[in-house]
């Protein structure tokens, strides 16, 4: 795919290679609750797009419906955005991509939006490998409708006003792998060091890049007994790797000689780095291992985070279809 990551220009202080300041990547003021995990993620998105010097005019923002789905209004206000319907971001994204496959798509959805009403379409979007940075801001509840359990809530988790979730929870990462997605990662809203490199990498991914971000709902799921409180997440967060991202022309500062860090050079001259943190061997290029890692961690009751699976050479839907170079929208 013709991903529009721009070629470097000389660095100016507080400007990126496009000469844009971070402020050029912000959006309108958030209306979410103070302390909501989603707002942190918005910040990380802004950082990554700024760092990667993506031209906002080449970006299209999408979302479904929910607190999480409001956030595209809070970043990249120079980009077109579409806050669609509850659960329908995936098909809308499919159409948006095919209409103009030169655009970089970033979609923000929630766990209700993705794992309940949108589950089927999410799965099918992944099968088709629609190129989109798909961020699920996963808090285990329906925030905007006031705290009902979502399908990703751990079984046994307690609701704010009593009630225990009896049902098996959906792990969107293992499902994404099962559906053929070629970029599957999990992170935590509070972890800029992990999430920002992941978004930087996702910006350069050819197909669907799915990032499940645990993002606590401060209002309805931050109490004791909630499996998604900040507390619970911090206690159970196990990182698979330490991740890093080095922009094109940026100096590779760290000393990766020891060998425990893998450095992957990307076509635009940037580098992605992974340093193994877990004892179990993992190879991000192997789908079966990714699935096994997730099964193991699930059995242990951990939130395993990191990059699980990645195919560098992912072929987006528009390429599969042999579309003309000129966007269909401009014909």
């Amino acid at each position: 795919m013709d991903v529009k990551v721009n070629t470097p220009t000389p660095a100016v202080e507080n400007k990126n290679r496009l000469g844009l300041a971070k402020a050029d990547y912000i959006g309108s003021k958030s209306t979410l609750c103070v302390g909501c995990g989603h707002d942190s993620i918005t910040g990380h998105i802004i950082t990554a797009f700024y760092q990667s010097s993506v031209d906002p005019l080449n970006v299209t923002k999408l979302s479904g419906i929910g607190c999480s789905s409001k956030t595209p209004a809070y970043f990249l206000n120079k980009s077109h955005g579409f806050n669609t319907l509850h659960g329908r971001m995936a098909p809308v994204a499919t159409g948006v991509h095919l209409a103009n496959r030169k655009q970089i798509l970033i979609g923000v959805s929630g766990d209700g939006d993705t794992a309940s009403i949108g589950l089927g379409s999410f799965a099918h979007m992944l099968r088709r490998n629609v190129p989109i940075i798909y961020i699920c801001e996963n808090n285990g509840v329906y925030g905007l409708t006031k705290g009902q359990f979502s399908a990703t809530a751990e079984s046994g988790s307690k609701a704010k006003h009593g009630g225990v979730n009896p049902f098996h929870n959906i792990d969107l990462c293992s499902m994404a792998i099962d559906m053929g997605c070629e970029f599957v990662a999990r992170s935590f809203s509070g972890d800029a060091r992990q999430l920002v490199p992941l978004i930087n990498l996702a910006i350069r991914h050819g197909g669907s890049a799915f990032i499940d971000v645990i993002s606590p709902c401060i209002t309805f799921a931050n109490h004791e007994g909630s499996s998604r409180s900040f507390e619970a997440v911090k206690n159970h967060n196990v990182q698979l790797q330490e991740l890093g991202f080095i922009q094109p022309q940026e100096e590779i500062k760290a000393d990766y000689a020891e060998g425990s860090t893998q450095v992957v050079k990307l076509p635009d001259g940037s580098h992605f780095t992974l340093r193994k943190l877990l004892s179990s061997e993992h190879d991000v290029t192997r789908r079966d291992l990714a699935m096994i890692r997730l099964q193991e961690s699930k059995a242990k009751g951990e939130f395993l985070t990191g990059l699980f699976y990645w195919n560098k050479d992912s072929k987006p839907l528009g390429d599969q279809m042999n579309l003309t170079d000129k966007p269909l929208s401009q014909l």
Partner: protein
Amino acid sequence: MLKPNDFVITVATANGSGSQSSNNILVRSLFRMGLPVGGKNLFPSNIQGLPTWFTMRVNGDGYTARKKFADIVVAMNPVTAVEDLKLVRPGGFVLLSSDIKIPEGASRTDVIVVPIPFREIVGPVSDSVKLRKLLMNMIYVGVLAELLKIPDEFMDETIQHQFGSKSSVIETNKKAIAAGRVYAQQNLAALNFPFRAEARLGQNKGKVLIDGNTASAMGLVFGGCTFVSWYPITPSSSVVEAFIEIADEFRVKDGKRDYAVVQAEDELAAIGMVVGAGWAGARAVTATSGPGVSLMAEAAGLAYYAEIPSVIWDVQRVGPSTGLPTRTMQGDLLAAYYLSHGDTKHVVLLPGSAQECFEFGQTALDLAEELQTLVIVLSDLDLGMNLHIAPKFAYPTKPIKRGKVLSKEQLEERGGFQRYKDVDGDGIGYRTITGMGHANGAYFTRGTGHDEAAGYSEKPDVYKNNVDRLSRKFLTAALKVPPPFIDQKQGNKVGLISYGSSSDAMTEARAMLKSHGLDTSHLVLRALPFTAHVEEFLKSHQRVYVVEQNRDGQLATIMRSELPQYWNKCFSVLHYDGLPLDAESVFDQVSGREKTWM
């Protein structure tokens, strides 16, 4: 001997038994002779084994609508033979496979039953059991060709066209037809068969015999459609299947397509993709049928309220619910017009012929972009899947209309834009498209409350102003949609209103009424909202019959609510048993009621 070129043939077989290509050869040979002919397939919701019927009607005056009874029935299906006998009108002929035994008492004395040993005749044609089974159907083609006096040249041309380069297939089929002919020559001369096809050379020149769905697909391909999504559903699947075939032929350059087709996972996704593509600037359509329309209701409201160009091509079948998937009905009019919750109303196009299926391909996309909204096209199974004569489609010359889309330069010139501001007073704002490249070009689209600048708003007056503008836009729509066809004569007291696939039967019914002394005017509605012509028409007639293929008189319902002052002039003529409309049904209902005034 009756007058030539006036007969109806119904062939009764089992689904999947291979009669389709035989029937096709027969009907296309008649077409090649220059005759007005139509072909209708009455098939079950099943892949193999259940009864199916194919009816061809040749009519010198050009009437090709369904008739209640056939002149000739070819009865190949033992399961339905007794019922099939009832399909023939008194005095008609039944070519009965002699494998079929009609039980004592079930036969008819008022028709001529001609047993034909199809199995024996086909025997020498091929050694293969499997092939013989298929070729049995060519035998009746041969018999009918001989009885109707269809010259071999037309049959040969048709076969050639149908099978192309497969010369062995051509030979075998010709052989089977010849065997049928020989049998008829030798055994059926004494019948004094009264029906005859008489060539009218050149009369079908510049015309095609085509199903509406293929015509629709061509219309979309040549009307600038760049995005199609669909979820398979009878009777709409062939719109997209034909689109793929035609676009693959005409719109691939250097191995690259300038269009995308996605088979979605369901109709919710199909319309979601169209909304996405339409928003991002593609000319996008999805084809479906009733159940799909219902599933698209939520997104239809989004397209209306967020003003996104999009097209649903609904090939209607019998509802409610899954209904009769392979039967025809005009049952989705109310659903389409009011689709979705809240105050919504959609532009609806009503193609009435294969020619219009073609034209409306571009019209629908143009209107969707000009009006920045959802356009729903209502075709139906009879129009979409049956064979109709149409003029050969010309490559459209109307320029493609993309509506108020601001380029980078235009935006620069204007110094900015407000997505939902009614600058021109027609209710339609200006839009920009992703990737247009201007720093002030972006806006945020949502199905929630928004102000003129596309900002989020829950303010009472902002909401009201916005939806009032949408009402104004709907008035603009009434100026832009295709106006009705009107055939009106000063002094006619009675008017008929119809739409969609009813046209064929209407023309014939009007002739029947006229021959009984009732000269009628006719308005063929082609779109909602109503243009001013509809009221004019109502004004100028004393009684108006609204002919529809549904139970609830859905158009009449909308007419009463929008033009209530004419309520007492309007009468519904309804037909809703899943079969295509026939002229007699219209004639009977209209003349029946007219008697009360006569």
